[in-house]
């Protein structure tokens, strides 16, 4: 693959392509736009905001004497992901579709004519940025929840399970980001790609999960959002679903589900690379 030729050790002073430099260029590209800060900020705000709302709800429930909210603290902290993932979808799609709408793509591909490193560098930069943002966002969400709900929400799950659910949010968002980049590169159109992804993640997946028709129930667990969010399910929920006799459709474990999301993301990225290499720019 072309990246191997680009990864030759570089003489620091020499002017030529390296994969590391393509990554540096993509990093600079992402952070020279205000929209990047807006979308990342929005993603954080949505997750933390949702955690704060759940915290307030827990406090209200306790005050009315109806016991406690039936969710663990770590789950409540990642509840906002339903919404914050949409900001990540927009960010990831725009990193490639904005290049097509402005014509920048031809400048980019003239500088990196092998093309593949461009998409791989974008995926790498997105992974890093989304991972860091989501870790910060999850930490802030736990903080907001503890601050608002006080003793009315419990962080009672075992350590390993809590850790998996907390780490699940950043990992899930990385999977969604790479999937979105791939879809954006395949569609080359901002509105189309965002509409397709949001429609899929928010509408189609939920419809598939809700309609008790066997073919849909068999497909549903394998869809990217549904599968990926298994990583944020509790062991008890997964065990309960697996215990149902003659359950229609597969019941994926937490990491199995995440593996399915990663497979979707890799598939989209590989398809995008193949198309980028073969189509005229």
């Amino acid at each position, binding site marked *: 693959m072309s990246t191997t030729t680009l990864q030759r050790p570089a003489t620091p002073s020499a002017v030529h392509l390296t994969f590391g430099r393509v990554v540096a260029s993509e990093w600079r590209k992402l952070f*020279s736009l205000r*929209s990047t800060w807006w979308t990342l900020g929005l993603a954080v705000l949505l997750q933390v905001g949702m955690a704060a709302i759940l915290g307030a709800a827990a406090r209200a429930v306790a005050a009315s004497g109806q016991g406690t909210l039936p969710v663990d603290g770590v789950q409540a902290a990642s509840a906002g992901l339903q919404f914050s993932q949409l900001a990540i979808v927009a960010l990831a799609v725009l990193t490639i579709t904005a290049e097509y709408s402005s014509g920048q793509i031809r400048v980019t591909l003239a500088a*990196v004519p092998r093309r593949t490193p461009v998409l791989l560098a974008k995926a790498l930069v997105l992974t890093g940025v989304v991972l860091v943002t989501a870790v910060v966002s999850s930490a802030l969400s736990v903080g907001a929840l503890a601050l608002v709900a006080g003793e009315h929400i419990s962080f009672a799950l075992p350590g390993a399970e809590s850790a998996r659910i907390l780490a699940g949010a950043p990992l899930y968002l990385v999977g969604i980001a790479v999937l979105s980049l791939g879809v954006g590169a395949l569609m080359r159109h901002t509105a189309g790609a965002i509409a397709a992804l949001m429609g899929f993640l928010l509408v189609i997946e939920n419809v598939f999960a809700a309609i008790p028709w066997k073919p849909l129930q068999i497909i549903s667990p394998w869809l990217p959002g549904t599968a990926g969010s298994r990583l944020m399910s509790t062991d008890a929920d997964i065990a309960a679903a697996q215990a149902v006799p003659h359950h229609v459709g597969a019941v994926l474990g937490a990491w199995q589900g995440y593996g399915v999301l990663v497979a979707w993301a890799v598939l989209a990225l590989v398809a995008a690379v193949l198309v980028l290499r073969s189509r005229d720019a």
Partner: protein
Amino acid sequence: MIEAHGLSKVYGTTRAVDDISFTVRPGIVTGFLGPNGAGKSTTMRMIMGLDRPTSGTVTVNGKPYVEHRAPLTQVGALLEAKAVHPGRTARQHLRVVGATHGLGARRVDEVLEMTGLGPVADKRVKGFSLGMGQRLGIAVALLGDPSTLILDEPVNGLDPEGVIWVRDLVRYLAGQGRTVFLSSHLMAEMAQTADHVIVIGRGRILADAPMATLLAGPGQEASRARAPRATELAAVLRSQGLTVTQTGADTLEIVAGTPAVAEAALAAGIAVHELAPVRASLEDAYLALTADEVEYHSGVGAPANPEVAR
């Protein structure tokens, strides 16, 4: 040095570029002239590896463009103005492109200075005029200090000062021994800038010759005469079967060489105050060459190609 061999590009049933071969040599400015839709931009994109040829090959300095280890140092290209995310500043755009090759702030400052973009370097491209966009595109092309420059319609949208600047710049770059390949539909501009011209029409090369040869190329001789008794002279010349156009009260244009006009005037005893050959302009040569090749002819009375700027 750019070398194309049997280069073709087919879109569906349209042969945008049809089996063309040419060489663009270093040290001179080579113009690429043709009506809109003739295949100029497609050819340039194929040189840059952006469009894949349907058949044929094109190399830059002996290798396909994509095989170079430092592409920006081989070819600098301006393919379209304002091919920049509108939210970035000129400096950020140049830093992004330079970063791929390890070119940093110092080189970016240099090209900003060379293209006169210094004062607007930190303004977002959103607010740039077409001319400023062209200058930024040229700055990107110069970034890698390339041995070959490919400029697609570089003077489009530039003010007269900018046009002169581009002309001087490309002549200077060619003078340094670089290969300069620029397209234009502004024929007068091409006549003043290029040393060698490749004329393309409907995807085929119609002429590939030094500018001087093209200007002196096939075409009928013509003369311009000024005479107080112009109308009388016109009648005499017409009686000899020549085509004459009276262009003013005392001026004529005759489709014939100056000797024939002088002899006829002398024989008729008509004084001629001025007599000069009419040199075919590049525009005339170009229109003669492409007359059959433009895709859409306009109606009677209009120029053969309405897109041609005069």
